[in-house]
């Protein structure tokens, strides 16, 4: 019951109790004090005053005897009268005092003594002193002397004895009273001492109780809190009461549970991140601002050969070789040691790493900086790029070889154009001069041979030009410009100037496309000149079209063009051959052709990501199609 009250209530209760108790003690003390006071007053009034009264009576009696004795010595009437007056006055006074005296409480023995004294006193006055005084007044000195001797002296002795006994009794009583009073005081004192001891004991008890009720649980709570702070979440927290401490414990318990939950979540999260890190194929190393390794994931273990335990706590520089004292070796130090060279942060760099077995290998590293509270944490993502490096080197070698080959080819083309052509030209010139200068010396056969010689030279020149054109495609890049094909095709037709029996028709308006003008011109030029060159009909018709149904629709990705002739047609089995370099289907003596044109067309169209193909029927004619992507820029 008491346990279920709050500490505040308990404290108020205890303090109230203490106040009431102390008030009671105070009252008791006050009561005892007033009691003692009354007792003292009693002693004074009942004993001290009567003692004084007895003394007074005794002295008055003595005075009366003296007054009587004095009257004997000088028995003049004045003296006798005077002394009589004193005597009477004293007797009255004695009576008054006595009356006061006997009002006090006396013991039965005292009462008897008082009665005896009163009797003896009355006798002394009435039988002794008064007759003695009357005798003196009558001047009967002798009688008076006899009275004194017979009555006054013995009676006086008796009275004095009585009074002394009374006084002794009174003193005895006073002493008794005083002692009883003292006992009373002692009792009160003892009660106080007992109370003080009781209060002290109570204080101790309350302290103990408080200690048990408040401080012990508080200490427990403190221990629990300290345990929680130290990370001990498994301790049993018992809520023993419903008071503040109990509430505190409950709060601690809740906090503990909450912390356990949070820590559990954090641990889950950490485990998740850790497994994430472990599953990374890149090495992850994190260090503090001095370069001391704090994290070292399995991939980093694989890369460097050290285990996590070996690496953690080491300075990160032990993972880099000492071969570049001013450069790479300090790569990590540059960031991790000094924090300088921030420009490299986040940039992937290639440096050399040092494996545990001493081998130096190329690695790729990206260093990130992160602020963690007051600290700087550097994270390094590391990749062993040995294989990639080898591959790259291999690739580089291949590229180099390719470039060399390419360069050779270019040189070859140059050599062809200059060095092959020069003698050809010389042959041509010399042959020309021969046939001109010596025309009268040649017979018909010789002239025919000269003609053939010159013709072959021209063919050779065409072939060389064809090779050069073909090899230039893709090598010499022109700028892409918007080319109005409609206009360009008309110009091409003009430049070919088809013979009168062949009609070239542009079926629809050709689009404007982004392309190298020379190349697209070569395409149309070759296709058209082929169609014209091989035309075998008396009424030749060539149709050029942008096939709107297929490729000229603005939503399509390709332009599709077609050039249709009504010439001899091509057998299907030749469809592939005709696009090969130097392949012709007719003897060159019949139709002059190099076999370069269609391969050039194919090369150009395919360079732009397009396709070229044909449909043909023998005797009816052929249609050459080619496509060009509308977004050539993106393709490149």
């Amino acid at each position: 019951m008491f346990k279920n009250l709050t500490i505040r209530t308990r404290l108020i209760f205890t303090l109230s109790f203490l106040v009431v108790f102390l008030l009671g003690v105070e009252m008791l003390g006050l009561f005892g004090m007033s009691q003692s006071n009354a007792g003292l007053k009693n002693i004074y009034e009942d004993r001290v005053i009567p003692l004084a009264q007895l003394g007074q009576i005794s002295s008055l009696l003595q005075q009366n005897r003296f007054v009587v004795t004095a009257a004997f010595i000088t028995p003049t009437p004045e003296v006798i009268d005077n002394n009589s007056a004193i005597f009477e006055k004293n007797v009255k006074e004695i009576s008054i005092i006595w009356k006061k005296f006997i009002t006090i409480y006396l013991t039965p023995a005292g009462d008897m003594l008082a009665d005896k004294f009163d009797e003896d006193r009355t006798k002394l006055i009435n039988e002794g002193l008064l007759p003695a005084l009357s005798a003196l007044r009558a001047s009967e000195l002798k009688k008076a002397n006899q009275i004194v001797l017979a009555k006054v002296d013995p009676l006086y002795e008796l009275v004095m004895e009585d009074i002394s006994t009374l006084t002794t009794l009174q003193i005895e009583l006073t002493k008794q009273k005083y002692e009883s009073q003292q006992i009373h005081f002692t009792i009160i004192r003892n009660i106080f001492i007992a109370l003080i001891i009781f209060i002290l004991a109570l204080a101790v008890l309350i302290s103990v109780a408080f200690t048990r009720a408040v401080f012990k649980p508080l200490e427990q709570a403190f221990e629990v809190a300290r345990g929680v702070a130290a990370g001990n979440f498994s301790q049993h927290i018992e809520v023993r009461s419903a008071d503040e401490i109990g509430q505190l414990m409950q709060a601690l318990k809740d906090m503990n549970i909450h912390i356990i939950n949070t820590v559990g979540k954090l641990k889950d999260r950490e485990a998740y991140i850790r497994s994430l890190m472990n599953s990374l194929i890149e090495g992850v190393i994190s260090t503090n601002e001095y370069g001391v390794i704090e994290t070292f994931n399995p991939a980093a273990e694989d890369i460097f050969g050290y285990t996590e335990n070996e690496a953690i706590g080491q300075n990160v520089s032990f993972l880099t070789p000492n071969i570049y004292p001013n450069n790479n070796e300090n790569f990590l130090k540059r960031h991790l040691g000094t924090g300088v060279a921030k420009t490299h942060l986040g940039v992937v760099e290639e440096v050399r790493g040092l494996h545990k077995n001493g081998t130096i290998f190329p690695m790729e590293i990206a260093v990130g900086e992160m602020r963690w509270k007051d600290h700087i944490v550097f994270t390094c993502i590391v990749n062993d790029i040995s294989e990639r490096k080898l591959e790259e080197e291999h690739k580089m070698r291949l590229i180099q070889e390719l470039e060399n080959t390419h360069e050779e080819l270019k040189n070859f083309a140059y050599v062809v154009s200059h060095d092959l052509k020069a003698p050809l030209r010389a042959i041509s010139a010399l042959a020309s001069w021969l046939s001109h200068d010596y025309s009268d010396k040649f017979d018909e056969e010789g002239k025919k041979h000269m003609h053939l010689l010159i013709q072959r030279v021209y063919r050779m020149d065409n072939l060389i030009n064809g090779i050069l054109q073909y090899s230039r495609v893709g090598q010499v890049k022109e700028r892409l410009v918007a080319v109005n094909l409609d206009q360009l095709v008309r110009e091409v037709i003009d430049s070919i100037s088809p013979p009168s029996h062949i009609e070239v028709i542009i079926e629809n308006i050709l689009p404007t496309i982004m392309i190298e003008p020379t190349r697209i011109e070569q395409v149309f030029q070759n296709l058209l000149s082929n169609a014209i060159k091989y035309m075998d009909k008396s009424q030749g018709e060539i149709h050029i079209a942008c096939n709107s149904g297929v490729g000229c629709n603005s939503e399509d990705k390709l332009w599709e063009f077609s050039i249709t002739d009504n010439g001899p047609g091509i057998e299907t089995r030749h469809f592939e051959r005709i696009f090969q370099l130097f392949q012709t289907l007719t003897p060159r003596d019949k139709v002059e052709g190099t076999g370069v044109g269609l391969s050039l067309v194919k090369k150009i169209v395919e360079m732009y990501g397009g396709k070229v193909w044909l449909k043909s029927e023998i005797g009816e004619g052929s249609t050459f199609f080619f496509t060009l992507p509308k977004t050539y820029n993106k393709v490149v």
Partner: protein
Amino acid sequence: MRITNKPILLVEDDEVDAMTVIRAFKDINVTNPLIRKENGEDALSYLRDVHIEKPCIILLDLNMPIMNGVEFLHVFKQDELLKRIPVVVLTTSEEQQDKVEIFNLGVAGYMAKPVDYMRFVEVMRSIDSYWTISEMP
């Protein structure tokens, strides 16, 4: 050239090509003396000779041993005394890059040597008539 009778400098290593030029000039009645040098270096040392009369035009081949036409032009165009003499390049190359490079060097003309002699004569005739009409410094 009909106006002046200054010499014409032909820088050409090929014997037949040189013959072609000479013959072509003869065919079109150009009477200027023709001086032939076989490479750029010879041509430069000739041009820098103070005793000779400077040519009115230089016909330059590109593909030559020792110092080719392009190297010759690089030196020639730096020379304050020579650089205003018009240079017509006569070459086999129809490479776009060659043309661009040559025109960047400030030549007066670029002619491809045709295989056909008669067409070559026509080219020569054009050069002659152009430089006959054209004002010279």
